[in-house]
């Protein structure tokens, strides 16, 4: 069979051609286009976005006339705009008003007639009534002062059977809820946050991180002898890095987890109830090189309408998410220019502004919203209040400023869906790559179209059936005639 042999040869030639094609087609130039501000798309790519926040001014201890800050660790802004800065190296708390003008300095308190100071405090919290809580780490205690800076109580050396005998209380960060329970993140504690009652007694731990077991580590541990094993690192849950509390009393916490969820929203039982409805769960940067690794989230701040921002210590970026876990905007970075940091340590909101504290430089950078940031914030607020039509208006403005903002299309889609404009809703959900809502809108659209054209569709089907029957009969008749004629 010479012909088939030739075909076989052709087959082989085709194989070789395909292989060559594969190599040629496989080389695809990846244009790395990362603008100063960016977002992540549905496909997990970094896409350009306008800046939502802009650094406007920079303040340090000297410009405030208070002497240079030394390794400040935390800052807090009360609802009335008063700013508290914890100047850890100088063992003092600096109070500023909303225009960043100094009010006063707290460097100690009177305890039973004797003046006492702080020793390397790491965290502070201020309640709505102006009570100040300081994690006085060096003195192993939490100090509670009232609005006149008089001592209310001291929380130290907690006693409980949950704690080991040699436990050393080193509070790092803390928050206080509406019923004056104190939640303390302490160094060397793997069981979660320490919860103290309003009278200062230790009650329990809440919200422990889950242990992650590295399979490779586990294998080595299996192979090791008992003696070797005792020298190895234990599998312990990761520690939290920071926490914040919103007006509803939910604790937002960040941890240094490389695996699992680095951001958590804990309810009173310590269960994680953070909503993760976005394309990817909130974790900072989605794209990173294997040498830098994922973002190390070091501080979190919850704003109104469930918006929250996290601070990445590795690259100095601030990621803001809305309550559903959609990424809203990213800004900041490491560097020497205004709006860039050296060692960012804490962030907080002052109204719509965001303040970032730099530990090594002892500086506070204030970021203010751009038009884009304002529109987006307002859109999220309107949506949170349930005013979808108003939110859609803002989302329209937002996509005019940033066509890459997939999340905004979904916002418009939801408003259109509510108004019954199903085909528009389908269009916008498609733009936003929102499969779940697309499906909902499409189902309604399909129903609507089928109902509208029910008569036409049904008569079409009936007509088709009749035609088919007629044709088959005609054929049979013809075939019979043929047989007869043959």
């Amino acid at each position: 069979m010479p012909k088939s042999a030739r075909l076989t040869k052709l087959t082989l030639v085709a194989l070789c051609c395909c292989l060559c094609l594969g190599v040629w087609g496989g080389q695809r130039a990846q244009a790395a286009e990362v603008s100063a501000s960016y977002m992540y798309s549905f496909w997990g790519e970094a896409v350009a976005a306008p800046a939502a926040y802009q650094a406007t001014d920079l303040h340090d201890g000297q410009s405030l006339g208070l002497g240079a800050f030394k390794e400040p660790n935390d800052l807090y802004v009360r609802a009335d705009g008063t700013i508290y800065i914890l100047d850890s190296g100088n063992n003092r708390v600096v109070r500023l008003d909303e225009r960043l003008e100094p009010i006063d300095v707290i460097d100690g308190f009177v305890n039973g007639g004797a003046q006492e100071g702080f020793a390397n405090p790491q965290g502070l919290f201020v309640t709505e009534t102006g009570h100040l809580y300081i994690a006085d780490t060096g003195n192993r205690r939490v100090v509670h002062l009232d609005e006149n800076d008089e001592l209310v109580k001291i929380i130290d050396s907690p006693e409980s059977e949950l704690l080991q005998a040699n436990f050393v209380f080193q509070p790092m960060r803390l928050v206080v809820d509406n019923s004056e329970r104190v939640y303390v993140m302490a160094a060397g504690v793997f069981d979660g946050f320490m919860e103290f009652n309003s009278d200062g007694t230790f009650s329990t731990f809440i919200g422990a991180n889950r242990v992650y077991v590295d399979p490779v580590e586990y294998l080595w541990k299996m192979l090791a002898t008992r003696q070797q094993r005792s020298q190895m690192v234990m599998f312990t849950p990761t520690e939290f890095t920071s926490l914040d509390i919103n007006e509803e009393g939910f604790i937002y916490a960040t941890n240094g987890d490389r695996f699992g969820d680095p951001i958590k929203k804990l309810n009173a039982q310590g269960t994680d109830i953070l909503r993760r409805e976005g394309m990817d769960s909130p974790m900072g940067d989605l794209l990173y090189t294997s040498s830098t690794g994922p973002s190390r989230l070091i501080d979190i701040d919850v704003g109104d309408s469930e918006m929250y921002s996290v601070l990445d210590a590795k690259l100095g970026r601030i990621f803001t998410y809305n309550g559903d876990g959609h990424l809203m905007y990213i800004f900041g970075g490491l560097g020497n220019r205004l709006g860039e940091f050296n060692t960012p340590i804490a962030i907080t909101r002052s109204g719509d502004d965001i303040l970032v504290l730099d530990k090594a430089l002892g500086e506070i950078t204030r970021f203010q919203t751009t038009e884009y940031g304002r529109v987006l914030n307002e859109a999220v607020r309107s949506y949170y209040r349930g005013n979808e039509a108003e939110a859609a208006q803002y989302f329209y403005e937002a996509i005019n400023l940033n066509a890459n903002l997939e999340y905004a299309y979904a916002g418009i889609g939801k408003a259109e869906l509510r108004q019954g404009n199903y085909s528009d809703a389908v269009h916008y959900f498609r733009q936003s790559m929102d499969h779940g809502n697309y499906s909902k809108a499409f189902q309604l659209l399909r129903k609507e179209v089928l109902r509208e054209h029910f008569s036409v569709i049904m008569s079409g089907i009936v007509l088709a059936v009749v035609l088919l029957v007629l044709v088959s009969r005609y054929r049979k008749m013809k075939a019979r005639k043929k047989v007869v004629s043959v």
Partner: protein
Amino acid sequence: MNRERITYPLHLIVRPFNGFWDMKYEHERRGNLIAAWVILALLALTMILQSQYSGFLVNFTNPKYLNSLMELMYVVVPVLFWCVANWSLTTLMDGEGKFVEIFMATCFALVPLVLIQFPWIWLSNYITLQETAFYYFSGSIAVVWCLFLLFVGNMTVHQFSPSKTLVTMALTVLAMGFMAFLCLLFFSLVQQIVSFVSTIYQELSLRS
């Protein structure tokens, strides 16, 4: 005769034992070989159309990186790899199949994929998220059917026992991996040689 060329693959997928037997011993080879190529082309076409036109809910291809040539490769190369690997193994394992027969059997086994996936390209534009279960279910049926046909085809073409066929198929997959590795090695070596030569040329042309 022409009509049979179209109906025969459809007959084969439902009566695989008779079908593959006829293919090997009864039929004229040339016609079937053309049919095999046509099936392969249709499958490639299905895959390309699928990544371009299937419904939003089931289409996860980034349109930015959709390349029809690459889609074509993803169909044709594995099939040819399979055939070459299978042929290389079965010649050593006393298989009776010739390369053409292996190729034809493999291509005929792909018919269910085309037959089931092709209508779904359009149908998937009119389904909701709940109904995608049917889409994925029929996709799985197509794959299982295809694997079964591949098994029967292999068994008939080489006149193997079922257990030997299974072993051969597993080894074929292994051999495919091996071939892929060798190809990568070969191409990276060629690339290095080319770059070496071009560097020398650059060096010489810049110095003169």
